[in-house]
């Protein structure tokens, strides 16, 4: 099974192959290679519209996750009976929003996109950050994923959940 990657925007010059490779590394770390995953890159206009429709927040944001399984216990992988259910869901990456943040903080866009995707995958796996306890649990998971990622790749990504208090 695989990652369905779509680029629906023309604001940010995206390196598709690099993003896919990073996502595959994340899937390998999490042991979710058998599950399909959708990663859709959109601009501010589109992510704002989706944010407004589904979360009633009329503003752009960095990531929106749409889990296939809505009631997963955090970190417990689903055990589907049918082939069609080998799906974790879709992640919409607000690449324009992320790019603007990177420009302000002089950070590498694709590195941050990978961190954002890790955060999004955690949501697909049932992690939340609505209470402090949930936030700690999710931060721990993200830290583990990105530490392993950094070990494999030599990069230095940090969890997005650190900045979750400003989630759009």
């Amino acid at each position, binding site marked *: 099974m695989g990652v369905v990657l779509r*680029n629906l925007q023309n604001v940010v010059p995206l390196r*598709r192959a690099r993003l896919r490779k990073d996502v595959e590394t994340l899937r390998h770390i999490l042991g979710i290679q058998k599950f399909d995953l959708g990663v859709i890159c959109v601009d501010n206009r589109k992510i704002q519209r989706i944010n407004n429709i589904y979360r009633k927040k009329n503003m752009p944001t960095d990531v929106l996750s749409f889990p296939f399984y809505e009631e997963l216990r955090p970190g417990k992988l689903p055990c589907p009976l049918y082939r069609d259910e080998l799906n974790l869901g879709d992640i919409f990456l607000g690449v324009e929003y992320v790019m603007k943040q990177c420009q302000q903080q002089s950070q590498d866009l694709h590195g941050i996109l990978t961190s954002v995707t890790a955060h999004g995958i955690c949501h697909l796996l049932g992690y939340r950050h609505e209470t402090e306890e949930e936030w700690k649990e999710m931060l721990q998971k993200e830290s583990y994923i990105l530490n392993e990622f950094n070990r494999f790749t030599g990069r230095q990504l940090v969890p997005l959940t650190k900045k979750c208090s400003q989630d759009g």
Partner: protein
Amino acid sequence: MLRTFSRAVSSAVRVSTTSMSSTPALHPLTRSVLYSPNSGTTRPFTRSLWMMSSNGAASGYRPKLFSSKGRSPVSCECVSLHTEGDKAFGDFLSDEMKEEKKVQKSKTVPKMSGGWELEQNGTEAKLIRKLSGEKVTVTFNINNSVPPNFEEEAEQVQGQKSAESEPDVVSTPNFVVEVTKPAAKHSLVFDCHYPEDEVSHGEGEEESDIFSIRQVSFQPEGDGEWKETSYTLNTDALDWALYDHLMDFLADRGVDNTFADELMELSTAMEHQEYIKFLDDLSGFIKCN
């Protein structure tokens, strides 16, 4: 809708003039001729022509075009056929051209960003760019590049027809990208298209990439025949990582989502220009000059 009528009309007239000598049976509309390919001289007659030429259902008026005796000669010194139907057609075309020119965004086509040179040969256009010794050529044809918009046309039929509710006509041509490296015998050729659900008709949720690569092949450099014996990579069942590398390759050469959006605008403008020119030529052909 006006463009729908006019395209249907242009097909229907050819049928009527070729069938004049046969028993005139008025066949009801069976199908639209909008996108019938290569239908030659035997295209089904469309109801649209009735609506265009009739003075109303109750009037009993029948265009003399369909009467076995019904040609109304127009006094004219040229030797070609002129009928009342032709006159009505000519008047219709004048109105149609006026309307189309009103909605035409500009008399000139938009310029592509990124330093692309445009060469046009009728309905075929080439965009050429050179960078670091490589030559990138994008070729497309505006013929058959406007997909039918069935949903919005259905709304029109239900009585919402008005100038303001005319659907936007967008041209989304298939296009071929050729990348030629210096002193190479072969070009790397990408056959690309706009996936249908990516043509936005409002605020629908698009799910596909703005454009997709369908096939990739090496072909002899230059304007030669397509070599059927060259291996052609079809992306339908392609490894997705390889596909992404191919897309990145194109993006590095200026063929990215921005390019695809601008190409759509260019093609739409060109198609509209050619359509108006066609109407003008058609009008000239029908009228007595």
